[in-house]
């Protein structure tokens, strides 16, 4: 005949078992949280596709192609006879844009610098082709200028254009590097050229 189990061992066994369940549950939660932390979040996993290219080359931004034709800079920009000065620098980028298969508006135009800063196209004056100012028809290349206001010490600028505005999730965005080095400032005020169809 077996000796009876000690009565005070049964509650202790249940407590150990319960604590073990809690510990395993917490471990599972911790592992899950670690996996979530290690995987990219929505902003990262759905970020825009940057399409790079040198100046002068056509960059394919899915619904349009763009090439940077030239860059000018000055301390003063003139629009309709009114001079706009700045504590920084005006950078005027001339681009050639051709829509692909449907009419396109450029809703996003920005300069990105080497320090990770982004400067949207200025709204201090009327933009001829940015900010959805002009509709680009398929197959018809149009050259136009976009004005930006940037700090005087900025370097490593690249032009980013996209059809989408806002977050531009998973959309193509051009990333064309402008000439490196300090910007040469035109001593005269610059004026934005009107857009023209490029043959």
């Amino acid at each position, binding site marked *: 005949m077996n000796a009876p189990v000690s009565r005070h061992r049964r509650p202790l066994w249940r407590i150990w078992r319960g604590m073990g369940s809690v510990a395993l549950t917490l471990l599972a939660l911790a592992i899950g949280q670690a996996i979530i932390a290690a995987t990219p979040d929505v902003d990262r996993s759905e970020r825009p596709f940057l399409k790079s290219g040198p100046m002068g080359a056509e960059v394919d931004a899915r619904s349009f192609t763009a090439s940077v034709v030239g860059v000018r800079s000055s301390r003063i920009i003139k629009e309709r006879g009114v001079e706009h000065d700045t504590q920084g620098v005006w950078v005027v980028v001339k681009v050639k844009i051709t829509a692909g*298969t*449907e*009419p396109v508006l450029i809703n996003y135009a920005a300069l990105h610098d080497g320090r990770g800063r982004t400067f949207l196209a200025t709204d201090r004056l009327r933009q001829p082709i940015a900010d959805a100012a002009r509709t680009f*028809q*398929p197959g*018809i290349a149009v050259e136009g200028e976009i004005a930006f206001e940037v700090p005087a010490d900025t370097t490593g600028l690249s032009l980013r254009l996209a059809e989408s505005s806002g977050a531009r999730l998973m959309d193509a965005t051009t990333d064309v590097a402008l000439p490196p080095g300090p910007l040469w400032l035109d001593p005269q005020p610059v004026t934005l050229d009107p857009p*023209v169809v490029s*043959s």
Partner: protein
Amino acid sequence: MTVTAIAPAPPPVRGWWRRNVWGLLTVLPLLVTAAAIGYADDVTEDYWDSQPRQPISAATNEWAQLGGARIRLVELVAATDLANYAGEPIQLPAGVLSWRAVIEFDAPDQDAVAGCKITLEDRAGRQYGTRPDELDQVRAGYPGCTADSSAGVDLRSYRTEALFVTPVGAEPVAVRITWITKLPIYLRLLR
């Protein structure tokens, strides 16, 4: 005399399958339900339906019927007589051609045709929009599918004129009319 106690027989051991039979029987309908829920809310299908996929086609001067309205393409020709607001002929940029589409409507129910988008389609499948910036100096109205609200318009017979530009070499083949509310169905009026 020695009496030997007979130990009771151990309870029969139930196999794994018998122990889990109810769980296994529940898994199958759960799987089917999960799959049905996934397919019932198919994002791919919603995206497909939001694009123009199902054309109702008609040749030039042939009526196309859509939602109680009849629409036909009267003409789609090169526009060579464009003038600016001062009445002077305009010069198009090199490499650009302009086109004029005249569309006729028989639409007593104006709600059936309101809110349309008119585009020109070329042989390569590219779409061109109305009122292009290349023709911003041209004296032209805003092409739409509803009649001019001024008095005297016969809703059974009114026309709209749309201007487009294409690059030289593009061959227009049709005028497309789309309504967001009618997608994926759209009209394709052939040249």
